[in-house]
């Protein structure tokens, strides 16, 4: 087979605005972005608390979050499946094989990244700012808000890391989403399916889109980095 043929078909699919391709891309982006935002909303304050305060249970929490960093996506998919399947404790929600289940799986997948990386960022910033915050008499909430604000440049990098992990993940969303056409099929699961069915052009088109998304995200982050650097951020 001519290796260039799939590239040509991929590009023509992309530029023709193929409806199925566009819906897959849209679902992938919405699932992953929702998971990233949710994991940041939960993970950043947790990272800040772990960095700024000493309390009983802090070390076990750090160990658990670090352990989940290396957890294979399929295992996370399996755990979520057990939770939300009809017989599971969250079975009453009826979200198995829906985009909501995929968002939940991706959130659990990237949450440890947002906690672990933000904790590291907050620890160095907290060491720098603790005397000032204490002198200003900032309370717990104000202190954490200020830390999050000061860390905004680093947090952008963390968000990108989370997004990269979420958008490229296949195992967990395959298990809890089921790869159902027009419903829960995303770019990675489509690539896996199309490749197994020999539809290499379609698989390649999605691969190119994934690369373009990564490219666009990196350009945006570089522009943001430049503006943050002007404010004295070490990025």
């Amino acid at each position, binding site marked *: 087979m001519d290796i260039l043929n799939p590239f040509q078909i991929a590009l023509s699919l992309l530029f023709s605005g193929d409806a199925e391709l566009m819906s897959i891309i849209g679902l992938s982006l919405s699932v992953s972005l929702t998971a990233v935002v949710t994991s940041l909303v939960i993970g950043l304050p947790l990272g800040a608390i772990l960095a700024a305060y000493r309390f009983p249970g802090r070390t076990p929490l750090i160990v658990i979050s670090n352990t989940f960093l290396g957890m294979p996506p399929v295992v996370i998919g399996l755990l979520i499946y057990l939770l939300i399947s009809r017989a599971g404790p969250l079975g009453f929600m009826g979200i198995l094989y829906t985009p909501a289940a995929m968002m939940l799986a991706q959130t659990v997948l990237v949450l440890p990244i947002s906690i672990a990386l933000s904790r590291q960022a907050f620890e160095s910033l907290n060491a720098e700012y603790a005397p000032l915050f204490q002198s200003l008499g900032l309370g717990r909430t104000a202190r954490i808000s200020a830390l999050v604000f000061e860390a905004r440049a680093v947090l952008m990098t963390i968000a990108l890391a989370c997004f990269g992990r979420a958008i490229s993940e296949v195992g967990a969303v395959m298990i809890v989403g089921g790869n159902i056409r027009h419903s829960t099929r995303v770019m990675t699961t489509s690539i896996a399916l199309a490749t197994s069915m020999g539809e290499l052009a379609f698989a390649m088109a999605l691969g190119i889109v994934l690369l373009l998304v990564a490219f666009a995200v990196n350009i945006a982050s570089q522009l943001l980095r430049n503006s943050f650097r002007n*404010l004295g951020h070490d990025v």
Partner: protein
Amino acid sequence: MTSDARSEVILSAHGLELVREGVRLLHDISLDIRRGSITLVLGHNGAGKTLLLNALHGLIDIQSGSIDAPPLPHQKMVFQKPIITRRTTRQHFQFICRDLDANEAGEWIKRAGIADRIDAPARALSGGEQQKLALVGALAAQPDILFLDEPTAHLDFAATKFVEGMIREAHEAGTTIVMTSHNRAQSERLGEDVLLLDGGRLVEAAPADRFFSAPQHPLAKQYLDHL
């Protein structure tokens, strides 16, 4: 401020002890700071000056002893190396002095002579400009007591003159100043009271004129000989 008010004690510490990793850093320090005075905390490097300021301001926990001082919102501290946030000059000022509106903040920044850098990143200011920003940010809050940890270290003559002028102005307005310094001339210019530390011990507490003209403790005489 009347002489009666100036003789009133605003901050009193008794038997302060600080131990870190088995090392005693402050030894049984007791002192009184008069309201409206300028007190110079002197001593060689490692004598415990910064630690004492931090302890009096409540930034570090002491192992024993007590401190009777105005509540934290009525105190301010300017650190030897200013802690500057990753914001613009205006935003940083409003972060460290939250009660002022944008116009008042602008006026204080203007007084610091850095109005042309008001929208520049605060961390891009020079060391002297950052120190001025930190000082006006502290003074704008009109604290009862202001702690200054070597506020003119690493500053050139013009910046030092500016900082000393602001200190005098705050003093005339009734603010109590407690500051550390390694500069004898500055200490003699500004100081009304002197606390001399050596190895974490308070070895002499005296009015500045008497301390510089007739120090009592042998270590005080030795210190002045080296200064």
